[in-house]
């Protein structure tokens, strides 16, 4: 099996706020991420596909195709958007790295027709990221 990874970057705003909690609890749990008017990040997304190289093309998946899928499913949905208000798939969820990575996994997985999705890694900043794997892919973290 071979892994291939494509990286894209997008910029978006968000706010951590749970309407079921009091204003004070929200401030305590989320700190400055609860600022009423939100804030933003430059996100870096690394999408890893696993598979065997096609004997004719030598490719696991045509990178052009992956690029188009990422443009359609992620960039058009999330780039320069407010994640709380403009991304339907995140409605009702706190737009943390963990939740955004999971949403991206579910958006991409059905679109990958050659090879299969191995890992979604989303960096909110260079020092904070979330990984999403298929459960049981124990070797995943070593990639």
């Amino acid at each position: 099996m071979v892994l291939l990874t494509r990286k894209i970057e997008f910029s978006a705003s968000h706010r951590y706020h749970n309407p079921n909690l009091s204003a004070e609890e929200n401030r305590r749990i989320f700190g400055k991420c609860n600022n009423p008017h939100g804030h933003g990040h430059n996100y870096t997304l690394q999408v890893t596909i696993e598979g065997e190289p096609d004997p004719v093309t030598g490719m696991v998946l045509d990178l052009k195709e992956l690029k188009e899928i990422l443009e359609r499913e992620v960039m058009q949905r999330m780039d320069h958007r407010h994640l709380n208000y403009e991304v339907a798939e995140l409605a009702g969820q706190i737009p943390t790295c963990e939740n955004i990575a999971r949403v991206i996994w579910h958006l991409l997985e059905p679109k990958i027709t050659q090879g299969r999705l191995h890992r979604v890694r989303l960096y909110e900043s260079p020092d904070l990221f979330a990984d999403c794997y298929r459960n049981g892919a124990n070797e995943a973290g070593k990639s």
Partner: protein
Amino acid sequence: MSRALKIELGRRYRFSASHRLHSSQLSEEENRRVFGKCNNPHGHGHNYVVEVSMSGDVDPATGMIANLADLDTFVECQVLEEFDHKSLNKDVAAFREKVPTTENLCIEIFRRLKSFPKAKLERIRVEETGNNSFEYTGENLEGNRP
């Protein structure tokens, strides 16, 4: 929550420390041969990056596996306070008898962070420099080499 997926939270920390690679079980000449300039008697230093990966259920109320403030405080107390701007050989008890290679550093940091109460420690990855990195996932933790 989907159980088909595993979500991990990754967080990077930094500390700067000195070390010297030297084994009391080897002769001076063997130490020089094995460790090269890392055996320089007065040690040398690195800016280390520690990447901590935790897994767990994402709490629907917070969207988080673990609150970052809790994780940051834990790592600060368990690792950074004792390691940052220190000599690993002289200031960290675990390395009085064990060579402070980055392999052993990964194992020691894993040992210190595995008791984090809010999530499961999956992996420690340490960058000694931008070109060298090491990972440890906790295998054979009780049977670490001396």
